[in-house]
């Protein structure tokens, strides 16, 4: 079973995305802060990470930077989850090295396709 690390501070959002992923057969690892997420990351080695950009302690960009800086984790795909919806945001997220992003509020019908596309897996 594939493992997903979800770093998200809002419990509702956490419940929603983790339920959807669970329904699709993923094992979920949860973290509510950026630092907490980095900690479990090293211990659990998930297949990919879903990362909220607005976190209470350090920003999602910072979390991403640290994931990429570590040789043992830099290959793990990271998908951002954000309510940024401004012009140029998409480009900015991709140029920071994210593999994809989900826009809040997420579209429950399409979210799995979006994740597969970001991971480069055929749907």
């Amino acid at each position, binding site marked *: 079973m594939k493992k997903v690390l979800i770093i998200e501070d809002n419990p*509702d*959002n956490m419940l*929603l995305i983790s339920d*959807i992923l669970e329904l699709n057969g993923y094992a979920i690892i949860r973290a509510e802060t950026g630092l907490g997420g980095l900690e479990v990351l090293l211990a659990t080695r998930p297949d990919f990470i879903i990362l909220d950009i607005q976190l209470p302690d350090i920003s999602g960009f910072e979390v991403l930077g640290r994931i990429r800086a570590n040789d043992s984790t830099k290959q793990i795909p990271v998908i951002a989850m954000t309510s940024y919806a401004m012009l140029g945001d998409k480009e900015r997220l991709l140029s920071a090295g994210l593999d994809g992003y989900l826009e809040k509020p997420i579209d429950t019908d399409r979210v799995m396709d979006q994740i597969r596309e970001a*991971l*480069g897996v055929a749907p």
Partner: protein
Amino acid sequence: MKKISLKLRIILFVFLVSTIPLGLFLLISIDQSSKAMVDIIAKRLQGESRLVARSIEGFITQRVLELQVISQADVLEQESANRIGRYLKEIRKEDKWITAFYVVSLSGRVIASTDENLHGGSFFDLYPTAKELFNKSKEAEQDDVFISEATEFVDGAGLLMMTPITDDDNIDVIKVLVARVDFVGIVELLNLLDTQILGKNKASVIDANGAVIASAGDVYGAARVSQRVSVNPKVLEHVFSESGFGYLFYTNDLGDELVTGYAALSGFGVNKAISWRVIESLRLEDVTLSVNRVRNTTIFVGLVLSLFSISIAYVFSRNISRSLREASSHAEQIGRGDFSRSLSFSLGGELGMLATAFNTMAARLNNTQEMLREKNDELVLTAENLRDREQNLEVTLNSIGDAVVTTDAHGLITRMNPVAEQLTGWSLHEAKGRPVKAVMPIVNASTREVIANPVEKVLATGEVVFLSNHTTLISKNGNEYQIADSAAPIRNGNDTIQGMVLVFNDVTESYRLRHEKDLALASIRLSEERFLLVAKATNDVIWDWDFVSNTVWWNDSMQNVFGHALDELEPGAESWTNRIHAEDSQRVIAGIHRVIDGGGYHWSDEYRFRRVDGSYAQILDRGYVIRNAKGEPTRMIGAMMDVSERKKNEKELENHRRHLQELVEEKTHELIRANERLQEMDRLKSLFIASISHELRTPLNSIIGFSSIMKRGVYGELNQKYKDYISRVNRSGQHLLSLVTDIIDISKIESGHVEVELSDFFIDELIFNAVEDIRRQAEEKGLSLSTDVPRGILLHTDRTRLLECLLNFLSNALKYSEEGVICVTVEDKDPDLLLTVSDTGVGMSEQDLTRLFEAFERFESHLRVKAGGTGLGLYLTKKIATELLQGEVGARSVLGEGSAFWIRIPKTLAATSETGGVFA
């Protein structure tokens, strides 16, 4: 013999002065203009080449800059091919002239590309010739960009541009970023610049080997470098021997003469790779062809003209010689004394024949002249006698002081002396032969009735007649004179009346003097009366100061205004001086004496004057000095006006004014402060709305997300009622989301936090995509879609925003139409573009139309409930169209028949400086 020679001479002359110079002039001027034309064309070709060269430089420079920026994206330093590939694809969308991006490892493997099929492959398999440049790029520093020579690819031709990707510290090169730019872009650019002259030439870009890299109008311009047409070696040598621009003339192998303008392109990249020239050629024949056409027409017209003038000359010369012959024969007849025929004489040259004929005639005329001279001498003697007598009479009449007019027996004027001329205003010359009453109309001085002229009476009765004293003569120029006159008949030897003499003189002056004296007396009486009345009636205190007796007369106002009883006043000037305020007294008295003693007439002053109760009144006093013939002052009259009340009012008025001004200033300050507060609040409001809307998206994530999972019954089937409820929750959530999205957009525009993103695109492509987007929805409703869009209109504006407006119109049309057609029309209204979306839906009333583009104004209709929507769509569209795209929107509609919404925007949007940061 002579006749023929004259004709010939005239024709020859015409030929010499007109035809030959005309021909020469035409030949020279055509030659000159042809040369000038070629010169202009050559300069023009040179200029066009420079323009094209600068444009291509701009084209390449832009890509160099892009590459420098892109090479610094963090993602490129990472190793995930997918991530890099996704980023490359995203930025590739921004620039259609970059065919592909590659991120290549130092060993030459393609790490990532815009084409993911190439990931992991060898870069040099794709581009074998790029090796040398690639090795240079590995050694280079950040921001160095290398550019290849024109390169032929497997699938086209173009340039490769390379720049190193460095590590975190920007020192070590870890990868190389490569961009491939195909020549299709340069061909497109050449087509856009439209360099045609005389519909013939086209611009080409050539390299140092003489291969044509790109050429305007070359549809398949990107095919193969090696297959290109090669350039004439003469041209090649010339244009590459210089590094600037210019033009040259040469003859090609086919023997055509050509002119070519050229301009050099500067080298690009650190390796200064590109050594290209832009050339534009034109066959001289094409230039001279049009000039030659003009020359042929001109020569033909010239020939016709000179033939015409020679024919005219021929006819003209024949007429002249014929006239001359006739003239000479007539002159002979006159010489013989035969005057029965008159002679019509024309210009001519053959005068020899005429000379003898006129000699004969002169002899006969001489006799007649002798006889006439004798008769004339007799007449002169008689006239002199008469003139002497006339002069005697003239002198007499002229020296008389009275006016004298004589007439004939019919009363018509025969003579007037100068005095009469002056009084009547008529000169003798004008008046002679006219009736007396016309020349000297007379009227009664007081009644203005016309008086019968004495002339008729004199002529009828033969008596002497005198006129009354009250007679006025009206002269020709309108002057009037009082006259006294008499008239007497003139009799000849037979005692019959043969005329009349009228004598009169001007008594105007004496009459006027007498009349004026009467008037003056009456006027003085009136003035005295008036003065006394005024003195009684006025509120002013009037005084009359006699200097000779030093007495002062005051009117009643002295008592009424100041309370001083007239009989208690001192008799002299003391009555005044004693009552002036002590502080004013010296100044006022000195002032009045300055006027009196200084020869002045007018005096005025303001001072305080004591009332009987001891208080003081504020006085304005004005006086007038009366002087005798020698200029000595004899008397002074004046009036004192009590201005105490007025003074007080003026002061109060001034106070009011000052107070008012202070109030206005205070209010203005308040308004400015209020306005500043308002502006700040407006800014805060927009910020607030933007951030609250942003925050709203997070809870909406739960509402929409959970409700849609629930709706599907993933964790167990819901009963029908719950299913209905949760569907409603979900729908409301979606509605709220679109509201929030619209509000964010509006507040971003209102707070100026929007960047307009300019790009070039074709309108037909945009509309095609938009229509495809809604096609499924339209078909589900049974609506058909049609478009009427001219192809190839290029826009330079914000594509995303325009698409947003169009989609909004389309979704409205979908919402409010139940059947029929939705039609998208585009019209080119240079410099604008008009885009219209019309439908056959419910339409709306005039009233609805006016409120249509306001916020939350969804119009009333029976479809409203079904329609949904936020009520902000058209408001947002208007904001985008007017504030971002610098255009306008509008709608027209007929209730029950359908609506049409239009947007009109400039095809090219000028970049504005007003761009806030991206709001996040």
